[in-house]
């Protein structure tokens, strides 16, 4: 049904729906000690990162200064304060993967995507991240793109793998 509506309206409706979801999470956790972290998780789930205007809502609702929220958001690697690409690539840099050449995979990805580690491609398609052990050492070297696991990779297999997402 949304196809019949002008695009801007559906964007606004989408934004409202997302904010509504955050407000529900705030209501759910508000009374709990340490409510901030589960709420930030929800924000990150819904938006893919922590947008400042949404954090302002969290700050007002929880009566917490923004400096404190920024402190928590910048402490945990999981939280991102900048928008991420459509597909987030986590390259495992755990010991087993590292020995099996994870650095080469990471370098090749960086070259292919033309972004540094932590960077997002210009078309917002991919974000490249290095991560600690993913717990799939048997598949080393391993990475995940979104929810999907790609194991036993070689640098030369990278371009073909990326094509799956284009």
């Amino acid at each position: 049904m949304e196809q019949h509506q002008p695009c801007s309206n559906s964007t606004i409706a989408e934004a409202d729906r997302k904010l509504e979801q955050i407000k529900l999470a705030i209501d759910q956790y508000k009374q709990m000690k340490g409510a901030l972290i589960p709420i930030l998780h929800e924000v990150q789930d819904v938006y893919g990162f922590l947008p400042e205007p949404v954090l302002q809502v969290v700050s007002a609702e929880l009566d917490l200064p923004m400096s404190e929220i920024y402190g928590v958001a910048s402490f945990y690697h999981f939280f991102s304060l900048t928008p991420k690409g459509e597909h987030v690539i986590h390259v495992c840099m755990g010991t087993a993967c590292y020995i099996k050449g994870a650095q080469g995979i990471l370098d090749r990805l960086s070259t292919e995507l033309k972004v540094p580690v932590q960077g997002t491609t210009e078309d917002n398609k991919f974000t490249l991240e290095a991560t600690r052990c993913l717990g799939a050492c048997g598949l080393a070297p391993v990475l995940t793109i979104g929810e999907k696991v790609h194991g036993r990779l070689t640098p030369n297999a990278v371009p073909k793998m990326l094509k799956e997402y284009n």
Partner: protein
Amino acid sequence: MNTVKIMIDGVETEIVKGTTVLEAARDQGINIPSLCYLQGVNHSSSCRVCVVEVGPRLIASCTLIAEDGMKIQTNTKKVRDARRTSAQLLLSDHDRECLSCSRGGNCELQSVSNSLNIREVTYTGEHSSREKDYSSPAIVRDASKCILCGRCVGACGTVQTVGAIGFAKRGFDTVISTAFGRPLAESTCVNCGQCIMACPVGALTEHENIRDVWDAIADPDQYVVVQTAPAVRVALGEEFGLPVGTRTTGKMAAALRRLGFNKVFDTVFGADLTIMEEGTELLSRLSSGQNLPLMTSCCPGWVKFMEHNFPDMLDNLSTCKSPHEMEGAMVKSYFAGKLGIDPQKITVVSIMPCTAKKFEGAREELSNKDMQDVDWVLTTRELAAMIKEAGIDFVNLKDEEFDNPLGVGSGAGTIFGATGGVSEAALRTVFELVSGQPLDTIEYTAVRGMDGIKENTVELPDGRTIRTAVVHGLGNARRLMEAMQRGEKSYDFMEVMACAGGCITGGGQPILNAADSSRLDVKALRAKAIYSEDEAQTVRKSHHNPFIKQLYAEFLGEPNSHLAHELLHTHYTARTKY
């Protein structure tokens, strides 16, 4: 039983239950070093320089509550080595430019390092953030000196409930930061400077204007007028080794003259003028019943706090400019006219116990005909630094008087420097204005003292009552404001000072180290000195100040007149919380 017996270094001692091992040892004459600990502000036990041995373990003594039968060793090899390692690690990532650091000689890291006999720092490696933030006109942050003790975060967030800064990032990248790492000037910082007072090192300092003031003095085309706030005279002596609470009014006036200022005026005159204007404003608001409670506007930390946090209540703030701004406005109008000097050629310098006054001095609205009422604001510390630079033997100076006519103030104006002072000064005048005749009562002691929130109802001679609240410390102010918003509290008059104790413990005052500030009751000692200044005055009510009467007769007309509004009143700006 309210005491416990513990053994410190083989000596048994009985102490009050709940005492920390650090305090207990210090009471026994054993000076355990500490850095991150600041009583009532920060109890994070993170720096580890205060460790002691309890059984097989090394424990931070600052937060270790002494328990009955505890055996504590403060001076074993293990303890000494651990403390030295912790201090050396801090030093290894500290910008050790002590010779040009404003805290050199009054730095807790330096004292700890000295007391532990650290002669070299063997740890080398990368340095963490070395960013300096000069964006604020009041406060400078220098990450290269920061030891991440968290004392400033406690002062800003826990005590003042401003929360402009906090810990951000993690591990080696950890920094004290504003939200999103923005410049301090773009944050909710109210410039109170309590972070500076809490900082053990030189990571937080005032934005110095010493060179600017020297330049003005050296400029033959400028007529440079200085004024000093009441709280400065009861603290300045500490910078020259005098005991806390020493009154140095006469020496200060003498020193200012020797520095080369053309006129040495007293902000107490401006305070008296504030009472005339604000007292009249209070009576008119009481009559109309509008915008009550009237909230004082002398404190620029409080004013900016209101603008950020309670923007819908700005109409409650008194429209009066703060005393030094009133004084500046009078210097550039009334006084300039009297002397026949072009006000463009007058520089007004305010010596304040405060860093927020620097921000206030630069507010666009505190000006007239494109001239700022006050050109430069220096803290008590900066004044001391100038006196030292000029080689003046402060302690042996002979007392001198302020200049006339804007250098004469009443006892009422003097007590502005302590919490409750503005209220008491206002009551001294308002009572007589209402009764229309002189009254014997001078001291209204109910508004004095160091309770965070002091409530009081006074009955005026005409039977009307004024419900007053005197608040100091922004945390207390926030609690009271919120109680008012919930409808639990209501008043007619509210005096608020951002710093606990009032201006006497402002962010521009001499800095005491953590040990001294917990040992001495600085607030009470400086307040006592302020009240003795008041008692020593013959004129103790603002409206009896002969020069105030003269000012109204010759220039302003009457309080809240059109001209008074133009020169002595201001407005406020709603600001965001983010």
